[in-house]
């Protein structure tokens, strides 16, 4: 009796497990689809690309999304009145043409005809009004963005003419009219923009499986004739670089970012393209705290840190040295030569430190985020470098959420290291350092001349003069050292050899519009 029961219960447990496994695997089919019989060959025939992305988008609703990783993907679905180009300038998108009044306050846009949304509806002026009313909180909902605080009114003149009036002139205003800040979305989709995003871009939404993938398909009615080439785009979320490289080697993805030290593993059999991503990797200080409120201390640290070592060790050489918060990716706006100013000079660093009143150095702490190993690696090199000039630095590693809360918004830190992601507009690349920009100026940099230059440039409509202002701003950052500027590290894209048409931008964007398999 005893024995039988015993066997019975044993079998019972086994059956329970099997039932658990089977019943649940039946319930699933569509969503966890990391799958299929895809290999390089079959996907090339199907014109379907599989792109690996590090993380999920924060929102699919372009007005709610803020993380650059989201726009990397969703910019394929949305367009604004203007479209950013690879060199950081703008071209007309949903707007066919525009005029600015002489006082710089009134912008009149002619809306392009013949644009359709992914759901087949024609884009109308009502959708443009709806988009901006939604962003500005004019239609009853809450304001979704601060970018349009300077807008006094919006209006339509006729079925294809849209007018925006500003409170004050702003030469950078057009940059807030790209899909990054004001993607045009259809009024008819109100309330469903996140679940079922609809835009006018070259690719339409198909499915989103959290933690797994975002699927897009070709927008048949796209207004640019003949584009896009691909039938399907599948963004696959994969946080581990190690696994991503293996995926590429196994032909399970066609395109992925790869860490510099892995390049040798894929070179030859795969295309590796470098892209200056217009970010600036910095080691920065809390400008309100002693001794970092002394410019000489900041300069001393700048001389002490071996930027080339960081580039070689952390990025295996795939990074471009910078001397202020701007990268060569910004073209004309970039001021060359600043990256040479603080070449490593330990003696000079010691002198400056002594002049500042710290001949024997001091002790401090560098707080870095754990979400990417590059930060703690950089910190380790900085610690060794600073030891040579007598500064004793302790490394504190915190999680990304805590870093954002404590360092970025709380400003409760002494030193930290981070990369500031690139944006298409030179103004937005530099405006972090404006003393009144509370939200972003976590360095607590406060320099009158810098503030003046940055407010003057907004009133300047001549591009050459704007460039002069922006270059002066870079000089100030280089002299005043609100941060040690290390490099714009390159994003290395490993792709299967049969892919062409990849484009790089001065911000994060996987533009799939002209990509095809050969």
């Amino acid at each position, binding site marked *: 009796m005893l024995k039988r029961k015993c*066997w019975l219960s044993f079998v019972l447990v086994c059956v329970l497990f099997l039932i658990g496994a089977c019943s649940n695997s039946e319930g*699933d089919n569509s969503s966890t689809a990391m799958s299929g019989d895809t290999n390089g060959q079959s996907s090339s025939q199907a014109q379907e690309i599989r792109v690996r992305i590090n993380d999920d988008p924060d929102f699919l609703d372009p007005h709610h999304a*803020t993380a650059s990783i989201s726009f990397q993907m969703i910019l394929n679905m949305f367009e604004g009145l203007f479209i950013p180009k690879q060199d950081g300038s703008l071209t007309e998108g949903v707007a066919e043409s525009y005029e600015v009044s002489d006082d710089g306050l009134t912008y009149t846009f002619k809306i392009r005809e013949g644009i359709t949304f992914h759901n087949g509806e024609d884009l109308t002026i009502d959708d443009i009004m709806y988009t901006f009313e939604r962003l500005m909180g004019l239609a009853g909902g809450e304001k979704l963005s601060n970018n349009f605080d300077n807008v006094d009114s919006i209006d339509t003149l006729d079925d294809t003419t849209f007018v925006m009036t500003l409170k004050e002139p702003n030469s950078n205003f057009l940059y807030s009219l790209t899909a990054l800040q004001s993607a045009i979305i259809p009024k008819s989709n109100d309330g469903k923009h996140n679940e079922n995003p609809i835009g006018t871009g070259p690719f339409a939404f198909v499915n989103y499986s959290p933690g797994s993938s975002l699927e897009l398909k070709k927008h048949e009615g796209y207004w640019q004739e003949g584009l896009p080439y691909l039938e399907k785009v599948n963004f696959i979320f994969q946080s*581990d670089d190690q696994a991503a490289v293996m*995926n590429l080697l196994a032909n*399970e993805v066609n395109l992925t970012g790869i860490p510099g030290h892995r390049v040798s593993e894929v070179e030859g059999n795969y295309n590796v393209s470098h892209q200056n991503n217009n970010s600036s990797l910095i080691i920065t200080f809390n400008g309100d705290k002693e001794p970092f409120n002394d410019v000489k201390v900041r300069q001393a640290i700048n001389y002490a840190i071996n930027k080339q070592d960081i580039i070689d060790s952390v990025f295996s050489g795939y990074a471009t040295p910078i001397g202020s918060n701007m990268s060569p990716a910004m073209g004309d706006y970039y001021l060359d030569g600043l990256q040479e100013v603080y070449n490593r000079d330990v003696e000079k660093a010691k002198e400056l430190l002594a002049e500042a009143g710290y001949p024997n150095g001091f002790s401090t702490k560098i707080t870095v985020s754990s979400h990417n190993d590059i930060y703690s690696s950089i910190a380790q090199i900085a610690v060794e470098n600073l030891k040579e000039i007598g500064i004793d630095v302790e490394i504190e590693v915190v999680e990304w*959420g805590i870093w954002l809360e404590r360092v970025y918004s709380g400003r409760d830190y002494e030193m930290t290291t981070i990369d500031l992601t690139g944006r298409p507009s030179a103004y937005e690349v530099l405006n972090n350092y404006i003393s009144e920009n509370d939200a972003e100026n976590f360095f607590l940099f406060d320099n009158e001349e810098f503030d003046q230059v940055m407010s003057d440039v907004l009133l300047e409509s001549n591009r050459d003069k704007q460039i002069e202002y922006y270059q002066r701003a870079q000089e100030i950052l280089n002299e005043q050292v609100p941060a040690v500027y290390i490099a714009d590290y390159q994003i290395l894209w490993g792709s299967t050899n049969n892919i062409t048409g990849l484009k790089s931008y001065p911000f994060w964007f996987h533009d799939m519009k002209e990509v095809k398999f050969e």
Partner: protein
Amino acid sequence: MFFYLRRIILLFITVALVSVITFAVFQVLPGDPIRTMLGTEADETQIENLRSELGLDRPLYEQYFTWIKGLFTGDLGNSIRFSMPVSTLLMERLPVTLSVASIALLIVLLVALPLGIFAARRKNKASDVVLSSVTQLGMAVPSFWLGMIFILYIGMNVDFFRINGYIPWTESIQGALSTLLLPALTIAIPQVAVKFRYVRTSILEQVQLDYVRTIRSKGLPEKIVVYKHILKNAMIPILTIFGLITAEIVAGTIIVEQVFALPGIGQLLITSISNRDFPLVQGIVMYITVAVVCINFLVDILYSVVDPRIRLR
């Protein structure tokens, strides 16, 4: 009867405590889910909008009771990070984790049981000693390293295996196995050592009992003694231990899913902790712990059905 009643009450107390611990831990956790999600590019308007939208500005006790109420109705709330119901996310990931765990359990059973019997029969002979040392080694290796080594030396060299991702059973059984076997093996190896030892000890304990001596003295062949009599009785404690390792196998999946990039519950848990996606973490942790508690409860009950003496303890 009292035994079962008491067990059931204890089950509920444990689950209630688990829910309090889970909820409490995430309240003292530093780090803001909203900022983590929106990153450095967020502006304050967006942060505040989202916070009130998600009800994160309500008092704690209110959030707790809403959550508990939801638990009973099967509504685990919405994930902050993914703006979808937690239960939907769980259901999507569950098959992956359950599949890996079941295969791992099967491997443990298929390996530990025969090995344990073998070692018990050859007690203290060289093969017994070697076996127990080798299995100990399996226990001592950090599982993620083991997983990586498998990927490097097996996954990348043997065509059958796919080194990451998951193919649902419904699509292809062979495909599912190609993604699940290596992770399951990685989880199973450290467990084999413990369970092998346990099987061996249980059998040895039986051998010393009088009935075995009696049977033996009747001159039955050794094989029959072992398989027919000893093994059946040794099954009781073995059953218990296999109930208990479910918790360990579930824990094993958490790390191993990372290594093999399997979109299961463990992977979801890790990302939701670093995202500070409290509703999601709470949902997953509750799900896992309640499952563990219930399996243990079930094993307890089965055990007492099999061996009524237990109830008196």
